[in-house]
């Protein structure tokens, strides 16, 4: 089992969700976050002149998938979240030791 953690543009959430759902990836957790990559922040307008905002609002999607479906999920997210401009985000993949469904006590991939 792998956990996929994708940092994406806020406005790409629905495209990513729909694309994942179409391939059977239904469950996910979404968090509003702030962050930045190598482009640093952006300039915004102040009362007169501009100021730099160092962190930009983004969304983090987390989902756990069976090992053999990891590449499929990564491909779907990368395609749906891409605009080609700086700031499209990143995907991180982690190994997952176990999963517990609290209601039934099921373990492993059955519990996802």
């Amino acid at each position, binding site marked *: 089992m792998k956990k996929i953690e994708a940092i994406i543009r806020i406005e790409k959430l629905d495209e990513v969700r729909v694309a994942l759902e179409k391939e059977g990836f239904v469950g996910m957790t979404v968090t509003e976050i702030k962050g930045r990559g190598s482009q640093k*922040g952006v300039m915004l*307008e*102040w*009362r*007169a*002149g*501009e*100021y*730099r*905002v*160092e962190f930009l609002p983004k969304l983090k999607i987390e989902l756990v998938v069976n090992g053999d479906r990891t590449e499929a999920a990564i491909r779907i997210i990368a395609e749906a979240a891409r605009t080609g401009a700086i700031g499209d985000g990143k995907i991180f993949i982690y190994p997952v030791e176990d999963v517990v469904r609290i209601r039934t006590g099921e373990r492993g991939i059955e519990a996802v």
Partner: protein
Amino acid sequence: MINSGDTAWVLISTALVILMTPALGFFYAGLVRKKNVLSTIMLSVALLALISLQWAFFGYSLAFGADRGGLIGGLNWLGLNGVGQAPNAAYAPTIPHLAFMVFQLAFAVITPALITGAFVERINFSGFLVFTFLWATFIYDPLAHWVWGVGGWLRTLGALDFAGGAVVHISAGLAALAVALVIGKRKDYGKIPMEPSNIPFTVLGAFLLWFGWFGFNGGSALSSGGLAASALVATNLAGAAAAITWMVISWIHKRPNLLGLATGGIAGLAAVTPASGFISPLSAMAIGMVAAIFCYYMIIFRVRVGLDESLDVFACHGIGGLWGVLAVGLFAEKAVNAAGADGLFFGNPGQLGAQLIMAASVALFSFIATYILAKVVDAIFVLRVKKNEEEIGLDISQHGETVY
């Protein structure tokens, strides 16, 4: 003889101007960081309560009481003794004296509240209360007497300030500059971004100020006839011209933004305040437009020199007020207000001289007296919070409350 129309308008105007102080709290709160939003609102609304009491106990008497050498009023109206339902013929012959007093109270409240923009995010609340109480007593009350009190030396000189360009805006703007120099920059100012926490708050506050300004300037006619209408129209047009001009300037530099539009409106409204009862609608537009240009570049300059006069009270109200008071000497017309004067453009260059004396004397007195007062209060009561209190934010460290 009491006129019910005049009385009704002045009482409604009083309520409009009273609303401006909490509106100012929101205007300022949206510009500070999230950890200081409540503190910033509190600085304004606490003054609504504090200065209301000061004004009733002795402030009104010091400003409008029997003249002492042209400089200050006497103590004849302490505790509003003798200020009753009958009109005071010298100030407003058609409304109750109490109505005139409470209308003026709203101005006495908002003026020190304007200054709070200079020291948000680092002010020690107890030091602030002492500073402001003394500022109202030793700076606002005498200045109000100079300009508006019967026997006040600037009033006697013939200098005109319809609704407080000198008394409110120049005095608050220069005081803000002085107290910002005494208290110093916010921690890490210029090193880390200080993002506005809530732009909708600021815009809501700005346009509630705009709304209240109809009472501020329109009510200053102290009657409900043509002059009030003229002042109200001038007020709206100056705010509008300044807001549009500000938007165009920011568009030329980059993008037309909401924070700029709102700030521009306030600069124009501040500038037209002293002139609003003496000028034509077209003159009001010209005053607003020029105010936006002056105030916009003063903010740019203020940021460039690294001065943390945090919310630009000097740039908006100080510069706007100075320009407006001088503009009276250019644009005033007796055709608009027979009790006023003609300005330079209407054949009377002398008026500009009187306006210049008023602008300079009020600015100098406010700056110097505030600087000394702030130094003294800082030495005894401390104006600035401790470093860790500033880092945590004043909402928690000063008031024990948290915002959304």
